[in-house]
């Protein structure tokens, strides 16, 4: 039987359709089938800890580093990034359009404008919390204007849509959302381009010393391939509605 590699990844890579392009390209290049389960970042890391997958593709740099430091993973390589954006209703009740992130969050706070948070410890949520912290705003948990959905990105955007709220999203998912609305989304990008909003994706092989049964050799092959020019080109060429979703950056390391 042909060999296969088991990957745990976050929903954003699957929902945007990137993996549907990456997997066949990888198989064509190496003859190895890529199978993936798309889950939250936290769950993906947990699956890795339990040796249930061979490789991870996730986007929560701090947690990833800790994962490697604790000996659960090896060979972490950054692969690509996209960026986060703050979206909201075109009427922009807190007047944040064009501001930098920190000022925008402060304005949302002072207007008590509705903000929808994922609240699920995902990469995006972690990022959002970090930004609030940098803006010097705490104690959000029980604020009336601050809603925590505990759901995936797209569902969270949908809730923001229903409620005319702001939210922080990765650009890939937003483009997908735009596509769902045939290019005329009810929520629009209001804040983007800030350095603080970078969203880095990395691959990590599960540590074969802890998990003797993982297919470490295949994992290495995947890491080699995706960081190679060939793999990076596939990422760079991936388009949705004519827009690039991810910027390959393996070479920068």
């Amino acid at each position, binding site marked *: 039987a042909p060999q296969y590699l088991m990957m745990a990844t976050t929903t954003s890579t699957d929902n945007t359709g990137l993996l549907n392009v990456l997997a066949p390209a990888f198989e064509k290049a190496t003859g190895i089938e890529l199978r993936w389960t798309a889950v*939250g970042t936290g*769950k993906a890391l947990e699956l890795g800890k339990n040796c249930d997958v061979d490789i991870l593709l996730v986007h929560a740099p701090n947690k990833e580093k800790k994962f490697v430091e604790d000996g659960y993973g090896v060979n972490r390589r950054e692969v690509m990034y996209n960026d986060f954006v703050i979206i909201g209703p075109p009427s922009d009740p807190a007047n944040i359009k064009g501001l930098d992130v920190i000022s925008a969050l402060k304005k949302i706070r002072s207007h008590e404008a509705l903000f929808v948070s994922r609240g699920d410890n995902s990469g995006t949520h972690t990022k959002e919390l970090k930004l609030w912290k940098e803006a010097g705003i705490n104690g959000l948990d029980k604020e009336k204007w601050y809603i925590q959905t*505990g759901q995936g990105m797209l569902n969270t955007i949908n809730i923001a849509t229903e409620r005319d709220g702001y939210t922080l999203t990765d650009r890939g998912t937003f483009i997908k959302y735009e596509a769902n609305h045939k290019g005329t989304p009810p929520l629009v990008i209001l804040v983007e381009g800030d350095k603080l909003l970078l969203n880095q994706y990395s691959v990590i092989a599960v540590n074969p010393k802890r998990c003797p049964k993982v297919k470490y050799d295949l994992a290495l092959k995947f890491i080699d391939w995706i960081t190679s020019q060939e793999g990076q080109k596939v990422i760079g060429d991936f388009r949705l509605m004519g827009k690039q979703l991810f910027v390959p950056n393996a070479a920068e390391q």
Partner: protein
Amino acid sequence: MNYILEGFIGAINLLLTKDPETYSAIWTTLRISTLSITFTLLLGIPLGFLLGHYSFPGKRVLRTIVDTLLALPTVVVGLLVYAFISRRGPFGELGLLFTIPGVAIGQFILALPIVVSLTASAIEGMDPKVYLTIKTLGASNKQAAIASLWEGRYAVLAAAITAYSRVISEVGISMMIGGNIKWHTRTITTAIALETGKGEFSMGIALGAVLLAFAFFANTLVSFLRRRA
């Protein structure tokens, strides 16, 4: 394996320390499920009687459709209800999305086929002489229906328990319609889904144990009622 042990300790912890998030989820679960099961039983038991008792053309097809609706996945129910009550849907004005009544509507749709189908089975399985006996004693059609259901009370109760269990354990509708909004529409099951998604498996198990404790409490009550009937 550790998750399970940790989970059970966690459950006891949550309950004993009166963890506010957990109690909020329990309370929300109780409100939603009470609302949905009440309407389900009020409509489902009579419909089940009609379907089980009367013969009419197309009955077999109708029965098959009801049984088919037992297989409605919660996400699909969620999507259907969402289509109607979203702001852009026909009932958007009512503001039911992300509210407890909104979720209850979805759960009602989920549980109705269960109650109808199992009640109909209970009635069909009954000795036809029982219904005749009730009628010979002078009952009107409605009184006879009630008395028949009382004769089959154990089976009807089983239908109710099955439906209630389905409702408190479902997650798709609560997630889609309720939005799993913390302090508002987060139920025990949506909280479990969230924790699991975070990789907090033992917390997921802990909340699962809390839900079961809740169900056990409800079933114990029922079991006492059953004994008296």
